[in-house]
């Protein structure tokens, strides 16, 4: 039996897609929210490091299934490797209702006004596609606020002198520092820096009918056993369902967005949970499948009118793939600096986010999430033997004596860092898969060295007996903070979507995820993606009438 036609299809039940589904449903549109994964479930994986969203050597508790979803990674020398979530180099977020917002660390940053205007603030960067957003911080401010209140953020910006202006405080008080946070924050203050508690999409007090965070030792990489961590799966998506206007269709792999001879989209083709090919038609399609998978879906949606894929007339779909090079330093102490109060990351500093000579952008610094035992076995000073007595002794003595201070560097986008599709490698359903190629702009590595040296300075001030830098910034970008592959812009020839996420030239096709971000800030991106979800939805609902746009 054919599926009933609906007003809107949203592809992807993650950060952006969850928000859009809720907003449209609340405004009376009939919505089907498609998700390739299922509903997350804490009991199925408990605190199992080897299938957590941090390690995944035995698979991903929150998807995607490594047997069904290969990808291709194209190396600098042009060689091609088939990769899966267990192999590494795969660059995914997750695949379940909520996606990354189920297992994330839940840092809830607003970008700073400069983050939307990098080009006009710093000028051109050779070899890059650096540009300003067609949207300003002021445009997004009300939508950041909506994300903070509807999804739930704990924090207090008044302690951060670099915080962007806001109209309303965050709805919950900030978390207390854990031990490492307190010690490092004090060291930062002594150096004249400005530490403050990290804003978090976690409940510091009961909120929206769910309990407060219990400071579980294992948090990032895992679901929350008491549901005190806020994602789209336990906030906006249930709200959307409660309206009666939104159906969440899980275990459905969307293969293609269909379009007609007039150049408008008509719905999607997908494979259901039994691998059966299906069609769902709609008035509107909103793609929110994450920066890599959104690019793949658009590129795989070819027709006579769009032989290179939807939105790709000028070859910009999949370009400017960004993420965050994490960079920082490790310090060892002669006392137990880690008390394992979850999630670990507890204090941040924005002193290095803008306006430093020779640095375009910069990055926030925060203490790192609690170490996990297997991953910690890979953390050793440079040159240390990776096995044997010495290695084990280090593990037992130092897992609580280590502090890591690091942050996401603002990456400078380039045209060759990109997602394409590889027609010769197909997924379980025969759909050509994501191929990732190119590398970060060389300036990222310079920025990373600079930020790592700042991190090391703070660790030393806090009394570290030994420190070493971990400098990121080389190789392929993307990953958990992937962004930029369907960038917004005013010029259809050098962007994919307009300032409302509407694909240039196709009035009923939108993008609403990390793909839209022209640049990716010096901060974890999820709150910005949620705000963009509200921003795109606001445009749609203001201009929508029954089954079409108001003329």
């Amino acid at each position, binding site marked *: 039996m054919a599926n009933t036609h609906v007003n809107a299809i949203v592809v992807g039940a993650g950060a952006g897609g969850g928000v859009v589904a809720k907003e449209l449903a609340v405004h009376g549109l009939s919505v089907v929210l498609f998700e390739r994964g299922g509903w997350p479930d804490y009991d199925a994986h*408990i*605190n*199992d*490091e*080897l299938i957590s969203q941090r*390690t995944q*050597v*035995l*698979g991903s508790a929150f998807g995607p299934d*490594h*047997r069904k979803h*290969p990808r291709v990674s194209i190396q600098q020398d042009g060689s091609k*490797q*088939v*990769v*899966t979530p*267990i*192999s*590494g*180099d795969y660059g995914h977020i997750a695949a379940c209702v909520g996606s990354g917002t189920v297992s994330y660390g839940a840092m809830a940053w607003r970008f700073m006004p400069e983050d939307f205007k990098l080009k006009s603030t710093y000028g051109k960067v050779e070899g890059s596609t650096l540009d300003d957003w067609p949207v300003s911080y002021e445009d997004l401010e009300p939508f950041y606020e909506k994300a903070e209140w509807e999804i739930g953020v704990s924090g207090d910006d008044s302690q951060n002198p670099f915080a962007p202006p806001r109209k309303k405080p965050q709805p919950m008080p900030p978390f207390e520092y854990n031990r490492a946070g307190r010690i490092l924050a004090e060291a930062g203050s002594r150096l004249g820096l400005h530490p403050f508690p990290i804003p978090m999409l976690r409940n510091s007090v009961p909120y929206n009918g769910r309990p407060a965070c*219990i*400071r*579980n*030792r*294992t948090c990032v990489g895992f679901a929350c*056993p*008491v549901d005190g961590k806020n994602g789209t799966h336990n906030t906006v998506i249930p709200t959307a369902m409660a309206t009666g206007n939104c159906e969440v269709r899980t275990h459905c792999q969307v293969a293609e967005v269909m379009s007609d001879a007039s150049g408008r989209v008509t719905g999607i083709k997908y494979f259901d949970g039994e691998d059966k090919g299906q069609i769902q038609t709609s008035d509107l399609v909103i793609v929110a499948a994450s920066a890599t998978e959104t690019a793949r879906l658009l590129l795989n949606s070819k027709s006579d009118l769009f032989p290179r894929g939807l939105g790709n007339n000028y070859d910009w779909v999949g370009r400017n793939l960004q993420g965050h090079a994490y960079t920082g330093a490790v310090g060892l102490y002669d006392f137990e600096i880690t008390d*394992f109060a*979850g999630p670990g990351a507890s204090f941040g500093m924005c002193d290095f986010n803008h306006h430093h000579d020779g640095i375009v952008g910069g990055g926030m610094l925060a203490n790192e999430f609690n170490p996990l*035992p*297997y*991953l*910690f*076995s*890979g953390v050793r000073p440079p040159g240390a033997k*990776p*096995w*044997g*007595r010495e*290695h*084990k*002794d280090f*593990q*037992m003595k130092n*897992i*609580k004596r280590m502090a890591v201070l690091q942050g996401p560097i603002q990456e400078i986008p380039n045209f060759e860092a990109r997602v394409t599709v590889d027609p010769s490698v197909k997924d379980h359903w025969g759909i050509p898969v994501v191929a990732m190629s190119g590398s970060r702009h060389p300036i990222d590595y310079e920025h990373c060295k600079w930020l790592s040296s700042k991190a090391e300075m703070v660790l030393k001030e806090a009394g570290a007996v030994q420190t070493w830098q971990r400098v990121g910034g080389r190789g392929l970008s993307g990953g958990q903070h992937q962004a930029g592959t369907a960038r917004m812009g005013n010029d259809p020839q050098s962007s994919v979507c307009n300032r409302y996420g509407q694909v240039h030239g196709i009035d009923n096709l939108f993008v609403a995820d990390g793909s839209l971000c022209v640049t990716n800030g010096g901060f974890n991106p999820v709150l910005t993606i949620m705000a963009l979800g509200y921003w795109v939805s606001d445009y749609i609902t203001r201009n929508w009438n029954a089954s079409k746009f108001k003329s």
Partner: protein
Amino acid sequence: MSIDRRTFLLTGVAGFGSIMLMPSCVTRTTSSWQFFTDEEAACVIALCEQIVPADEHGGGATKAGVIHYIDRQLVAVFDYDQVIYQQGISALQNSCLDLHGKRFETLDFDTQYTLCTAMEEGKLPGEHWGELDQGRFFRLVISHSMQGFYGPPRHGGNKDYMSYKMMDLDFPLVVGRNHYEHLS
């Protein structure tokens, strides 16, 4: 992590094919293991004990049952590593017989340590290794040993959460809330 990645990249495309097409393609004689023969297992047990030895903190890989972890994964998620294990074990044994006239697991701890260091540096007699990169084989066993020793017990290793206890990471994660799951 980089070890896992590097290792996989080398087996790359072939590896993916084997996941899809030919799980557990190797026919084995009967043994008490899912993948290993008893002889192979004895060698891997000794090798893992070198990687994570017993010491003043407590037991090592043997006591933690790391071999159970590896054996189990080799017929599941790591099935594409079956061949490298078989070839690696056999090359190591031939190297030991050649140098010391004995199998690896029967040598004393210090001799085993010296052999592991040589293997890590690619210095065991090349004629026994053929195409196989001995350093790569050793790094693979290192990463699997770390997973089996420091990963959760539900996958076969880290018996009774012993490594967590040595790190003083034992339950509950938060007082009164979480408990170790009970394994039958």
